[in-house]
């Protein structure tokens, strides 16, 4: 009977949020939750929400509840500045976001000089950290140049290919990566046979395929996301083209395998070190699935960003941005991306790139 009462009291405590002692800690999540780029923004929001709920269930942060404020910037610079100033007005202590490099760039002009911690799960434009203007900006995803150099090394050193075609999707991620790859290859004395973009959502890519067929590159490097990648490789294979393909982390996605089936066999993709076997990652994936959600391209990066932030706050035992910043750079945190910390510029350490290849319907690390 007594146990029951205690249980009841405990349950009551758990179900009444007002019971929390102090004001909640506010953390912003910003990204594209509607519009064309919603598929990239919604999963990060979901994973952060999930992580925050779990955290609150376990007693919150520094004894306070964590409250997530999600703001939609539609990946547009103007909306991003509006959202950013709204988050500032609401006195969030940190922002997980933004999703697109462009929107992040615009939003940073609002945060700049404000000592607000911003951790993006997906903005890969190198200059965001490298230009040194954003001391409180971090990202859990390595920037494009890192990945591009990895790709160039693999193509030139491992595969020993010299005939390379670069195709991109004209988007800021895809074209950015393709551009970096071109630069990386240039440093190694290779000029690509082709550098051009396709329009995502076009009804047919066969003109490009015929062009590839004529140029006969040994490998096609595609900068962009998996939907376009699988369309291009499928059409190429159906036309009997046998060259190799390589892409970045935007392609290493389970749906790429499912949708591309036999056509994507042999496709190379660079991506952060394999994390899908780690217990923490598996657990998050399982919980997401239970909610009918997917991790998308950047969901795990966003989860990791949140985890790293929480760990840093706990380590600093404060919400002071300078102390958190120091903790982020000093302490390693166990996250869905593995053990990570951040370098002086704000880029992630510990999430390197491996090269994978599709073999029998699965991505297998080959380098």
């Amino acid at each position, binding site marked *: 009977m007594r146990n029951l009462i205690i249980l009841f009291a405990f349950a009551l405590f758990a179900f009444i949020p007002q019971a929390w002692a102090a004001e909640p800690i506010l953390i912003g999540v910003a990204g594209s*939750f*509607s*519009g064309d780029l919603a598929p990239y923004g919604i999963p990060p929001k979901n994973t952060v929400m999930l992580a925050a709920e779990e955290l609150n269930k376990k007693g919150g942060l520094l004894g306070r509840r964590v409250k997530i404020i*999600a*703001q*939609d910037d539609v*990946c*547009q*610079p*103007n909306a*991003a*500045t*509006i959202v950013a*100033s*709204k988050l*500032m*007005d609401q006195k969030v202590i940190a922002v997980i976001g933004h999703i697109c*490099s*462009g929107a992040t*760039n*615009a939003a940073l*002009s*609002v945060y*700049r*000089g*404000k000592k607000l911690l911003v951790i993006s799960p997906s903005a890969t*434009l190198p*200059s965001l950290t490298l230009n040194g*203007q954003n001391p409180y900006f971090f990202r859990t995803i390595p920037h494009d140049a890192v990945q591009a150099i990895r790709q160039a090394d693999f193509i030139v050193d491992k595969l020993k290919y010299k005939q390379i075609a670069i195709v991109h999707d*004209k*988007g*800021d991620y895809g*074209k*950015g990566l393709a*551009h970096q790859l071109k630069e990386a290859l240039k440093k190694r004395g290779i000029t690509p046979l082709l550098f051009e*973009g396709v329009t995502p959502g076009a009804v047919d890519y066969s003109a490009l395929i015929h062009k590839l067929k004529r140029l006969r590159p040994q490998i096609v490097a595609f900068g962009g996301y998996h939907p376009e990648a699988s369309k291009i490789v499928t059409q190429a294979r159906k036309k009997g083209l046998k060259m190799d393909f390589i892409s970045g982390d935007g392609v290493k996605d389970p*749906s790429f395998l*499912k*949708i591309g089936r036999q056509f994507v066999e042999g496709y190379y993709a660079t991506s952060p070190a394999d994390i899908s076997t780690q217990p923490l990652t598996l657990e998050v994936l399982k919980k997401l699935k239970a909610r009918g959600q997917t991790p998308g391209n950047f969901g795990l990066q966003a989860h990791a960003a949140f985890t790293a932030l929480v760990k840093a706050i706990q380590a600093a035992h404060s919400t002071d941005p300078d102390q958190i910043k120091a903790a982020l750079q000093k302490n390693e945190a166990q996250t869905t991306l593995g053990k990570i910390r951040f370098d002086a510029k704000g880029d992630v350490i510990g999430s390197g790139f491996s090269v994978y290849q599709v073999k029998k319907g699965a991505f297998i690390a080959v380098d």
Partner: protein
Amino acid sequence: MRKELLRHLSTAFGLTLLALPLVGMKVDFIEKTLDWRWGRLMGVFALTFSLSWLWRYLLVHRPQQARSSPAPGVLAARAHLLVNQRVLLLLFLVLSLVPWVAGGYQVNILITAMAYITLALGLNIVVGMAGLLDLGYVAFYAIGAYSYGLLHHYLGWGFWQSLGVGGLLAAAMGILLGIPVLRLRGDYLAIVTLGFGEILRLLLENEADFTFGVQGIPNIPKPTFFGFRFDYEGGIVFLFYIMLGILLLAITATKRLQYSRVGRAWMAIRENELAAQAMGIDLTKTKLNAFGLGAFWAGVVGVVFAAKTSFINPASFQFFESAIILSIVVLGGMGSVLGVVLAAILLILLPEYLRFLAEYRMLLFGALMVAMMIFRPQGLVPRLRPRYERDKASKA
């Protein structure tokens, strides 16, 4: 009554049937699974059933003149009282107090709203007054923004120099575009301007060596005040006043042009091109005037936009923007300044304040656009005809 009930039931049934494969089922072709979602389908049925009643009720009670002549009703009469110079000035005074009482967010969205009002007033010259349907208006906005971005990056120009140049450059492009398309009528003009807008955006994307392509141009500075540089908050407040000033100019220009020889020529062209020609109106010059002046405002706002976001990329200038600006003009009631202001507030601020609806926000926004057109096709505030009353002196 029973007939009514049956009617709405069958409407709801039909719409639910339409929703069946999208709302009621979800398939995954790879996993070969099929989910039935009956609960959601029931929700659709309940919703459509109640909406059907409401829709019917509103349609029946729709004011009759909505369909025929837009007789200036009570609203317009009141609007006329509202928009006299003194009231307008008062409104601006109140508005100019906002930065002192509200936070950065409110200031930020008010700048955006004012920017769209100005854009709509500019497009109103082209579409509302001259009757030239322009679906690529966003191109001129982009030209303004990129003038500042590029002039700053390559030549180190500041906001103030760029403001003039951006506006003039946009106006020049407007005239340049106008020349080849003058012969086109109505909707052909619409699609060519749409094409022009897309071409410009694609060029901005592709000519990466010059325009920085899809990566965009970052770190565009805020305006300075006689060399004084503000911090972010100060900068945005200063920008707020600059935008307020521009808006005031745009409103004055619109109101004065309506009562002028040039404005009447625009409206004459809109009403009947042939008769306008026969009355000695130079079609080419008058249309180019409209294109140029309309584009000028877009260029000016573009420069402000670049300064406000401090970052610009081609993706900010998509067709959707043109569509929204056009919607503001039409929803406002073509040619009415007050209407444009109200419509801009509705279409720009409403989605902003609807954020709590989260993912239903844009759905509702689209539905509202349809509903507003159906229940007020002539716009919120129909243009009041200028009253040229005979002077007392000459009557005597």
